[in-house]
Structures are given as structure tokens and as C-alpha cells.
């Protein structure tokens, strides 16, 4: 093969930059005692400039939240990975809100962290305001959230990527995909073998390609009546070639969605005295299971400011409606992160909340959450000035809307691979989701899957019963999307079990043992935690006595149980005013060794009985999910007894497992049994074939 001169050209200034950044971070990292596993630029990590390789295991296209997690995860699994992005300096940029986590989304961040992903640690590094949402509503629905410093977040992600072994970063625009005849042993009509780079350079080959193009796939930017091409203001539009390949060469079903971002406001021009000041938590809780504390000290946190819209805002929206091309389009936008225009039109006469969020320690801007808009700039200014605190406010950059293509995600497998195309994986907004956390979660999983495929390891699936990531992927590939998909806790049927506090127990050991994407250090920590909690719970259960005895022993608490019933220590933790510390001080001999787990034990005790109850139902779902359906089946002609309706539904969805099939609308119990029967039969036949070999 020929060499690639452009590799050297493009990456020329890279090593210098990365060394410099890493240097500062290294010192700071040591000082802050923040655990950073791959801080040193290891000898095996390479910047593009030094590369002579032209064949990779995995190529990731795009450097946003999905792309960075995908590239890092693929490299962790052991694949030689190439990340291609339009501009290296925009890797890890927070394009929209300067925050991470929240209710439901916080669960995703912690799960990504439990699988050794980047965003949790990046959040701990860049956070400048931490809070646990839903604090009063029960630990199962707590939502860890942080305001971020945009610069710090980007720095962390970039330094992390540039120091990841087996990962190379390349600046360039992908123009199209290389395809060839499919491998006949696997399902799929075509095989993706690499990418074509714009500018006439030689193509690059790979066993797996992950597309994380975000809003750049045929992206169009809307402001007032102006429409321009692009996926983010200030960046060049991505090549139309990619969109063409997906549509024409691969024949994928493509839809269109829209989203938007608010104007950024100059902080000095805001009358903060007219707002409600909302400080962060007194004691910040880190996202990452590896971090005991955040980089930002509690007292250094910056506040958020709360204010409200006025009837004047509604008036400006209505007056400007004819100048608002984005709002007039009927492309589907989200119902839960709508522009101020659609909120006002849908619920007129209501006061809306506006959060003014800090953008960073050194930033002079505020981000007005809730004021996403696409009016012409002069009307944007008029609109925000209808809010008393923003009466003299200045806009630094106006808000705008984006419309973009997405690939209907029902065309994907549970590993996020395009069913039709061997070796092609998709993650992030290209799959119809919205949000950094949703993108990161998919990116991580696509990275793990693509690497495993490239290394000829079996592909895995994440179950709905084990993680929010599993819920997210299952919802996407089984139900599809009609509007940008966002995670809520109400989407998870096993909410009591899938909590943000126990993501490490659920995922880290599996991540090491089965998936190969978790480091030894994290694995050891997760095992220590699992064993510690198990021992502590056993110790608690071993202490059992009547309520009266407990009350004598513990003093001040009141137990409303019948006198005769005995309670053990774990059951006692279900009571609101009983803490593990209280029990440990009453029984120091057997419990004080576990004081470091006291917060987690309290939560385990609270949910323990319910956990055991949900186990059975989860087991049933898992059983169905373990029965995989072959992907090369033609349901329309399959010689089993199925109604025409069921055949059409199955043909459209091509479910991967029996569990997914049961969740399809229009599939009856009898259809399921016929499928079950068919699966068992084919499994048996395959087994016999194997025996013959």
C-alpha cells in the first residue's frame, strides 16, 4: 500500500500541543489528588504526525461526545483506533449547554463511568457547580448534575484522548465510505471497509467504522429567515457525500429532526440582583466512582441564577413569527427541550423559568437555559430584554436552530451496528437522540462493539434489566424515534434496581471480565466495593432482634412494628431515621469496619426488599433476551404459522432477540411461541452441525 502524505501534514503541530496541555494537567492533577489513570503520554500513544499506519481496526468519524467515548472505548478494548474529526481543537467541545447529568441523564453518566468512559471523570475535572437533583425524592431517582467549565472539559477530553494507547487522532473531513461484498457467513448486504477523506487523499481502511456525525449530516442552520449549511455555528458543513452513501449506497431510511440553542449573554450586563441565586451542593458529589472529590473545591463553586419570562416575551415571539423559518418548518423537534417560541405557542399565558448558568471560571458569559430561539438577532435581543433581569443585557452570540438527518435507529442491532452493513456502527444524534449523556452512552457501546467486531470477539448486548444504556439502546432499536430521544427515569421499568449509586456494581466487573473495556484498577475497586457491601450486608443481617430491643439499643428512634416481629440490621435501615452510623456505633465490633460504605448501605437497605421482588421479573425478561433471533430470516416467507400483520411487523423491525419481539406493537403471544419454537429448532440444528464438524 501507499503511504499517506496528508497524515503528516495535518497532524504536524499536534505533538507539541498535546505535550504542552498534558504538562499543565499533570501538575494540576497531582495537586488536586484527582485520579487520572492515563495521565502520562505513554510511549505507545501516537499523534497523527508520526503515523505510517494506513489500516486500523476501528475508525471513528466525529469528535463529539459519542465520537470521543467511542474512540476511547475501542482503544481500551484493544483495537488500533483512528479518530477523524474536522478540527482537532473542537474535540470535546460542549456545543450547547454547559452542563452534564441530571435526572435520568446522571444515571447514564455514572454508567459510562462504570464502564471506564470519559465523561464522568471529565465532569469531575471541569465541574464548577455540582448538585444532586431530586435529593428529596429517593435515591433511585437522584440525578447527579454539574455545571461545566467549557475550556476545562475540552482540555480534559483532548488530553485523555491524545494520551490513550492505540488511539490516533486525525484532522480531516470524511467524504464517503468504502464498501465491498459482504462476508457471506454473516448477515448484511454490504460490508464497510473504510472511509474516503475529502481533498483527494488515499482512503483509509478499517475493519469497523463508527459514524458519530451529530447534527452535521445534511445539517442546516436557521436564524430568522436565514438558512445556511452546517451542523454547528462556526464550523464548516460536513461533506454531503456521507449522507449520500448512507441513503443511496446502503439504502438506509433517513429522517429529519431539529434542535436549537439559546443566545449567549454577557454576564456583566445582567442585573443579577433581580434573580434568585442558586448555589451548588455544600459538598459536591463526583460523577466518577474513581474520584473521592471534584477538582473544584466546594467554596469555589459558581452559582446559577433563576429568573422568569414575562408576557412581553410572548408578545415578541408572536410578532416575530413570520420571520421565523425554523418554527414554520414541520420537522419534529423535542417536546422536552423546546424553543421558547414553541413553549409560548403551546402553553400561552404562562410564566416560564429561565436559568442563567455560568459557562466557566474565566468566562464572561451566561447561558440562558430555557431560551433556545431562532428569531432574527435583533428580535432575540428585544425578547430577552422583556425579562426584568435582562433589561440591559447584551447578546454575545445569537441563538439558532439546527435541522439535520438521522438514520432511523430500528435499522440497528443491539451492538449499534447497521444491520444491512457489516462493520458500520452509528452512535449519538445520528441515531435520533439528543443530549451529551445519551450520545456518550451510545458512543461507548458502539466503541466496545466495533472493537470487538474488529478483533473477531463475539458481540454483546446490554440488557434493559441491567442498565439505562441498555434501556436507551433497546428503545432506539425496537421502538425507533419520532422526536429527539432523551432519557428519563420513567423509561426504565426496573428503576429501583438501576440506580446511579450502584452503576459500578452493575457494570464494572462485567465491563472488565466480559467486555474488556474496563481497566484493572477500576475492576479491583469494583470488586472491593462489591465484596465490601456484601460482607457488610451479611453482618447487618446477622444482627436480629425485636423492635423493643432495637429501640433500647439505639435510643431516640421510634419503630412502629408489632412487638413480636424480629428485625435484622438491614431491614432496620429501611426506616427513614435509622442510619448505618447509628448501627455501627451500637455494634462497633462487627460493623465499624464497614463505615466507609455507610451511605451506600443505607440505600441498599432501603431498596433491598423491592430489589428481590423485581429480580424475578428481570429474570423473565433476561430469559427472553437471551434467545436471539437470526438476522437473515425472511419473515414474509418463513414457514411457520404467523399472521400477515405479525410478519410485516417482524420484517420491518427484524428484532434481535425474543425479548425485543415481545415489545413490538402488534406481536401476539402465539406469534412469540412460534418464534420461540423456531429459534430452539434452529439452535438445535446448529448444535448438531457443530457436532458433525
Amino acid at each position: 500500500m501507499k503511504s499517506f502524505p496528508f497524515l503528516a501534514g495535518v497532524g504536524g503541530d499536534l505533538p507539541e500541543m498535546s505535550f504542552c496541555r498534558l504538562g499543565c494537567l499533570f501538575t494540576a492533577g497531582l495537586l488536586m489528588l484527582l485520579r487520572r489513570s492515563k495521565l502520562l503520554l505513554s510511549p505507545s500513544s501516537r499523534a497523527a504526525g508520526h503515523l505510517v499506519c494506513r489500516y486500523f481496526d476501528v475508525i471513528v468519524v466525529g469528535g463529539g461526545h459519542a465520537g470521543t467515548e467511542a474512540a476511547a472505548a475501542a482503544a481500551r478494548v484493544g483495537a488500533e483506533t483512528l479518530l477523524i474529526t474536522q478540527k482537532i481543537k473542537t474535540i470535546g467541545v460542549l456545543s450547547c449547554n454547559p452542563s452534564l447529568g441530571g435526572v435520568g441523564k446522571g444515571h447514564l453518566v455514572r454508567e459510562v463511568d462504570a464502564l471506564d468512559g470519559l465523561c464522568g471523570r471529565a465532569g469531575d475535572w471541569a465541574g464548577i457547580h455540582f448538585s444532586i437533583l431530586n435529593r428529596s425524592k429517593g435515591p433511585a431517582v437522584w440525578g447527579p448534575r454539574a455545571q461545566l467549565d467549557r475550556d476545562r472539559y475540552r482540555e480534559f477530553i483532548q488530553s485523555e484522548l491524545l494520551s490513550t494507547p492505540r488511539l490516533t487522532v486525525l484532522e480531516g473531513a470524511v467524504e464517503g465510505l468504502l464498501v465491498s461484498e459482504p462476508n457471506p457467513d454473516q448477515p448484511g448486504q454490504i460490508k464497510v471497509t473504510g472511509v474516503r477523506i475529502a481533498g483527494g487523499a488515499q482512503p483509509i481502511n478499517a475493519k469497523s467504522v463508527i459514524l458519530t456525525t451529530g447534527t452535521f449530516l445534511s445539517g442546516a442552520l436557521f436564524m430568522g429567515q436565514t438558512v445556511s449549511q452546517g451542523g454547528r455555528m462556526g464550523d464548516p458543513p460536513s461533506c454531503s457525500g456521507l449522507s449520500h452513501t448512507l441513503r443511496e449506497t446502503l439504502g438506509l431510511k433517513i429522517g429529519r429532526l431539529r434542535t436549537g440553542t439559546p443566545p449567549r449573554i454577557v454576564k456583566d450586563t445582567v442585573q443579577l440582583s433581580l434573580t434568585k441565586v442558586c448555589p451548588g451542593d455544600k459538598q459536591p458529589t463526583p460523577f466518577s466512582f474513581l474520584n473521592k472529590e471534584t477538582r473544584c473545591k466546594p467554596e469555589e463553586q459558581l452559582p446559577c441564577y433563576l429568573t422568569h419570562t414575562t408576557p412581553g416575551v410572548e408578545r415578541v415571539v408572536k410578532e416575530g413569527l413570520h420571520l421565523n423559518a425554523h418554527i414554520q418548518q414541520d420537522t419534529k423537534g423535542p417536546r422536552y427541550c423546546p424553543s421558547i417560541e414553541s413553549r409560548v405557542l403551546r402553553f400561552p399565558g404562562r410564566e416560564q423559568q429561565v436559568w442563567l448558568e455560568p459557562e466557566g471560571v474565566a468566562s464572561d458569559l451566561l447561558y440562558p437555559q430555557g431560551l433556545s430561539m431562532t428569531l432574527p438577532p435583533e428580535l432575540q435581543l428585544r425578547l430577552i430584554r422583556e425579562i426584568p433581569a435582562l433589561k440591559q443585557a447584551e447578546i454575545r452570540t445569537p441563538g439558532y436552530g439546527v435541522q439535520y438527518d438521522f438514520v432511523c435507529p430500528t435499522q440497528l442491532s443491539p451492538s449499534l451496528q447497521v444491520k444491512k452493513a457489516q462493520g458500520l456502527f452509528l452512535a449519538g444524534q445520528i441515531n435520533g437522540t439528543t443530549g451529551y449523556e445519551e450520545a456518550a452512552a451510545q458512543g461507548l457501546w458502539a466503541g466496545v462493539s466495533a472493537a470487538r467486531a474488529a478483533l473477531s470477539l463475539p458481540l454483546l448486548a446490554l440488557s434493559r434489566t441491567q442498565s439505562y444504556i441498555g434501556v436507551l439502546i433497546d428503545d432506539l432499536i425496537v421502538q425507533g424515534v419520532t422526536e429527539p430521544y432523551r432519557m428519563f427515569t420513567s423509561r426504565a421499568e426496573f428503576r429501583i434496581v438501576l440506580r446511579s449509586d450502584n452503576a459500578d456494581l452493575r457494570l464494572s466487573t462485567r465491563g472488565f471480565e466480559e467486555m474488556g473495556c474496563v481497566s484493572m484498577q477500576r475492576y479491583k475497586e469494583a470488586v472491593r466495593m462489591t465484596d465490601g457491601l456484601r460482607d457488610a450486608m451479611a453482618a447487618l443481617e446477622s444482627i436480629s432482634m425485636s423492635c423493643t430491643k432495637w429501640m433500647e439499643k439505639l435510643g431516640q428512634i421510634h419503630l412502629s412494628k408489632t412487638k413480636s416481629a424480629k428485625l435484622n440490621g438491614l431491614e432496620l435501615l429501611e426506616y427513614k431515621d435509622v442510619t448505618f452510623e447509628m448501627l455501627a456505633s451500637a455494634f462497633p465490633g462487627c460493623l465499624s469496619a464497614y463505615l466507609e460504605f455507610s451511605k451506600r448501605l443505607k440505600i441498599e437497605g432501603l431498596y433491598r426488599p423491592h430489589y428481590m421482588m423485581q429480580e424475578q421479573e428481570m429474570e423473565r425478561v433476561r430469559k427472553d433476551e437471551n434467545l436471539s433471533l437470526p438476522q437473515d430470516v425472511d419473515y414474509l416467507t418463513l414457514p411457520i404459522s404467523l399472521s400477515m400483520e405479525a410478519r410485516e411487523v417482524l420484517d420491518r423491525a427484524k428484532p434481535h432477540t425474543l425479548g425485543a419481539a415481545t415489545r413490538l406493537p402488534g406481536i401476539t403471544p402465539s406469534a412469540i411461541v412460534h418464534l420461540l419454537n423456531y429459534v430452539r429448532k434452529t439452535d438445535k440444528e446448529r448444535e448438531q452441525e457443530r457436532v458433525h464438524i
Partner: protein
Amino acid sequence: MFLNSIAVWRISSFIRKEFRFNLTKNLCCKGIYDADTIFALSSGHGMCGVAVVRVSGPASALVLQSMAGLSRGLPPPRTAVLRNVTDPRSQELLDRGLVLWFPGPRSFTGEDSAEFHLHGGAAVITGVLQALGSVPGVRPAEAGEFTRRAFHAGKLDLTEVEGLGDLIHAETEAQRRQALRQMEGELSRLYQGWSQRLTRSLAHMEAFIDFSEDELIEEGVLNEVDLSVLQLQREIEGHLQDGRRAERLRSGVQAVIAGATNAGKSSFLNLLCQRPAAIVSPTAGTTRDVVETSLNIGGFPVVLSDTAGLRDTGDSVEMEGVRRAKERVQLADVTLVVVDSTQLPQNYQSVQNFLTDHLRSILPNEDDLTASLQRCLLVLNKRDLLSRRTVDGLQKSISQAEGLPLASLLSCQTGDGLDDFLDVFQDRMRTLCGDPLVGSVSLTQARHRCHLQQCVRALSQYHRYRDVDLALAAEGLRLALTSVGRITGKVGAEQILDIIFRDFCIGK
């Protein structure tokens, strides 16, 4: 009125106490979630000497202990013992019958199982099924669930499973029709109303959990949910108390006579019940409403309905009759399609096409005409008006026709051919009544009752956790909705989100 509300209060406090007691004993898993022990009537419905009720799942031993007076020890495995079967709550004697204990894995399903062999009367069966439904953690089986469990446990070989899908299809179909029949009218509106209120409460709860930190969702939303849940709980408890006055439900196989006007449907009804139950006249459109009569065909209970002739009409009364006729046909276990054989084409070859088209116009075919055809018998009337040669030719061509339901050529005027028809009809009855779900009102009632009891238990979980942990309180509402959903249809996450976004302005 006053007394009534006291009674409601008593039972609700009883249920709450019981629930708390369960929790104390750390057995609450048996209270709500452990819905994994199932029961069903395994023997056929209709006239039978012995009825077999099967139970499978972890609580099977508990069932035997609490219902067959075996609290001191279970009988030896796989050995029949004669026991008094009692209601675990009231200790009322339900029947005296044989009881068997099959500890897993050596049972049909591979799980712990039990069987009750009871006297086959409707009252006994109803009593036992309802009593079973009241045992914590025990619920009626879904269609085919026993077989499916056996399959999962590797207890069935592949040849045995071949027919399973069809069996479950038939069960599901029968259950659906049965449920539809019972869901007509007041009861249906009641259950649907509960389901809707519960869905809304859950949606508001979920909105509060997922969005209240960022949005203007006031704590007041939860107070409304509290009130609504309390009200709902009282109503359902009241309804369960009131169970004995439940709507009298029609029992038996539902057979419906349908066809074009003047085909002789009413004459056919009169012939079958041997009395002039319906008015017969040569004028087309004489029968306008549904005429219903109960019959006993070969020992099987049948509810036979005569319906208005199907034709396009401008008469508003007749139009309503046609609408009712169509509705009946949709809910029927068997449709007897009466055809005037003098209207058949002379050419025997085209008889099949003619009949297929005719059936297509009468039978419901939205989902599956084949399924409707399987539930149908053809009655070719007015045989007396045909020549001998035509009768022979016709008989030959319909016996050779494929894809047509069984057909009988008869005359309502002379009674010729009636015996042949009755043979066919009885045969069909036997098949249908071998299916325990057809016409089994008691099973459906037991099912509803059980789900409503689960719902009430789950609602008390809501109150128990309301001030402790909202996630657990919401879990109670989710469980309650799942229980009611088993009667009225499943409510998915998307529907909950739809309500959230309709009722609240979510912006962040």
C-alpha cells in the same frame, strides 16, 4: 350510605394492616411482586364430572397449606389425598376433593405444582378460582403460560411444541372474545375509567420525578395524586366488596346465526329450539333486533342468537339491527351462516367462489378471514326447493371445496338434513368446550378480581412510601396500573410521556 362507607373503611384498613403485617414478616414479595405463581382451570368447560385446577410456581405449597388444610405438612409427592378445600380468608368450605402435590422439578412445568380435582359444578369452580386469586402472590395464568413454562424448563420436546402456538392462539382468541363480551356495558366503563385515572396519576407522579427540579411543577400536583389514589382505592375496594352483586354474565358457547335477508335465519332458530322463538315472515328484514335463546346441544350450553339480515338499508331501525348483528358476529364463538341455496349459481364450479365471497361479506375480516372461517359453519337452507339432481351435485361440489367451512344442506321447512347438521354442530361444541376458556365466565371473573386485588395492594404501597421515598411510591402506582392494565390493556411508557407533555410545559 353511611353504613356502606364504614364497610369500605373497614376493608381498606384490613387490607392495609394485612399488607403491613406481610412487610413485617419480610414476606412482602409474596404480596405484590411475586405474581409468579399461576393457576388455571385445566379441564374442559361444560358438563363434566370432575374439574381440574392446576397451580404452578413457588407459592404452590402455600396454596395447599392454606386451602387444603395441609398447614402441618404436605402430602407425599404425586399422591392423591382427599381433603376439604376451603377459602383461606373466610375458612368457608368450598368442596371436598382430591389434592396432589408435585414438588419441582418433577412436575409438568418443572416448578412446584399442585392440582385440585373438584366436583365439576360452576359454583364450586368459581369459588375455588376466586379463593386462589386471593392467595398472595398467586394469579390466573395468561394464555398458554403453563405450557410456556414447561417449555422453558425443557419439559416439552419439539414435537409437543409444534401445536403449542396454535393452541395459544386459540386460547388467546377465545379469551379476547370472552373479555370483549364481558367488557360491554357498565363494567367496562368502570374499569376503563380506573385505568385512565391511574394512568394520569402515574403520569403526574413521573412528571414530578423527572422534571420538577427544572420546571414549574408544584408540590400541589402530588396532593392531587394523593387524593385521586385514595379515591380510587376506596372505589375498587368497594367494588370488590360488592362482588356478589356483579353483573350476571351470560355463560355458554356463543353461537350466532347470520346471513343475508330472507335466507331463513329465523326459521332456522325456531327449528333448532323447536318453538317459534322468532317471528318468521316472507318479508325481507323481518328480524331487526337480536333474538337470543339458550339451548342445550348434546349436553353443552349454547346461547343462540338470531340476527337481522345483512343488507344495505335506509331504514334507521333496520340499520341499527344490522350494526348489532355485525357486532354479535365479531364476538361469536361459532357463526352459523345461513344461505338460501336457491340463490346459488347453477354452475357447480362457481359455487365455491360465490360462497367465499358471500362469507367474506358477512364475517369479520379485518385481521384474519381464515380465523373467522374456522369459527364458522355453513347452513345451506331451502333444500326442499331444489331438484334431486341439484342437491346431489351441490353436495358433491361443497364436499370437495377447499378453504370453505363445513357445510350442511337442509330445509327448515321440512326438517330434512337437520340431523346431519346437528352431528356437525355437536362435534364443534365438543371441540370448543374442551377449551376451558370458552364461555367460562367464572375464570374471567376470578381473573378480574385477582388483578383488582393486586391493584389495591399496590395502591397501599403508594401511601406507605409517599413520605419516605417517591420512587417506591411511584413503583406502587406502576404496579397498580400494570394490574388494571391486565384487564383493560397495557399502558406503555410512551403513553405516560404523552400525558406528561400534554399536561405540563416541560422546557429544560
